[in-house]
């Protein structure tokens, strides 16, 4: 969970960086720190987290109202992640502005991930209140 939240934060930062300054060889001392590379590096972590969250449902979840909302947010994020991967495959990004399709898909993925993150971090509080 901690690693996934850190990845979600990194993806948020990368999305902002990609919006404000697209890929550039001059903007990064180490090319492996380019926003698109950092973002791609986090995707498997998020994928693993989404797989893990799939195990939480109304029966197994600690809160009967929270679990369906989480499941819905998780499904949306997974769909957005698939769209990002599809766009990456169709037109792999190079050193220059991202194409509009990929940029849009990344933004929507980041938005969905932010909502999921919020819901996921609310769970312990809800759980504590219930007890």
């Amino acid at each position, binding site marked *: 969970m901690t690693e996934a939240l850190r990845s979600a934060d990194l993806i948020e930062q990368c999305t902002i960086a990609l919006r404000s300054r697209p890929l550039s060889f001059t903007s990064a001392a180490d090319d492996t720190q380019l926003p698109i*590379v950092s973002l*791609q590096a986090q995707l*498997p972590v998020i994928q693993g987290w989404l797989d893990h969250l799939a195990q939480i449902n109304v029966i197994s979840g600690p809160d009967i109202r929270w679990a369906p909302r989480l499941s819905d947010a998780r499904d949306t994020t997974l769909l957005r992640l698939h769209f990002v*991967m599809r766009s990456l495959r*169709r037109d*792999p990004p*190079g050193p220059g502005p991202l194409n509009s399709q990929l940029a849009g898909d990344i933004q929507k993925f980041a938005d969905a991930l932010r909502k999921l993150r919020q819901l996921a971090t609310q769970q312990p509080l809800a759980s504590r209140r219930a007890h």
Partner: protein
Amino acid sequence: MADQAESSGRHWKDPPDTADSFLQQIAVLQEGKQEIGVILRVLHEADLPLNLLENNLVDVHVPDLRGAARARSGSEQADETVRLAVYLHTIARECRNIVEDRRFNEFLRTVRYTKENTEVLLAAFNELADAWSAYQPVINRLDVAEWGERPSPDQIWIALKRPRREYIDALGAYYVQLLNVINKLEADPNARRD
């Protein structure tokens, strides 16, 4: 020369220790990424004429890339001189082969380089290969062009502009995917060379 060929043949026939083999493959990937990155930076930052890709000749005798260079040319010679563009494409193809190698790809999965990551890299290489298929024949014409003949050298230089630009763009996209592989390898302490 024969000794060199035999030496190289022995290298490929004897199955190396898997860990050593992976380290060699990682080294080739890192060197490939480094060399492609340097040229892309030069092209982006230094404002040099793009025809340096065809005008600059490279003596290919980097040990790790020797096999790839020989396979490309079909020659038994260990070393050869090629245009920079040809050299870069040889490196790009060698790196693709490594990532695609079944055992190495399984190893990459252990450092969280996923099947989807591989697919994106292969897609980037396919675009590069498409760009190369338009670019390479024009480069080859430079070797036989003569003044007074058609196409003349200056006509070929003009004809190179578009395929060269498309190749550089595709090389940039492929480089980003190479960075993604290196990023995963460097994040894993067991995969580091140093």
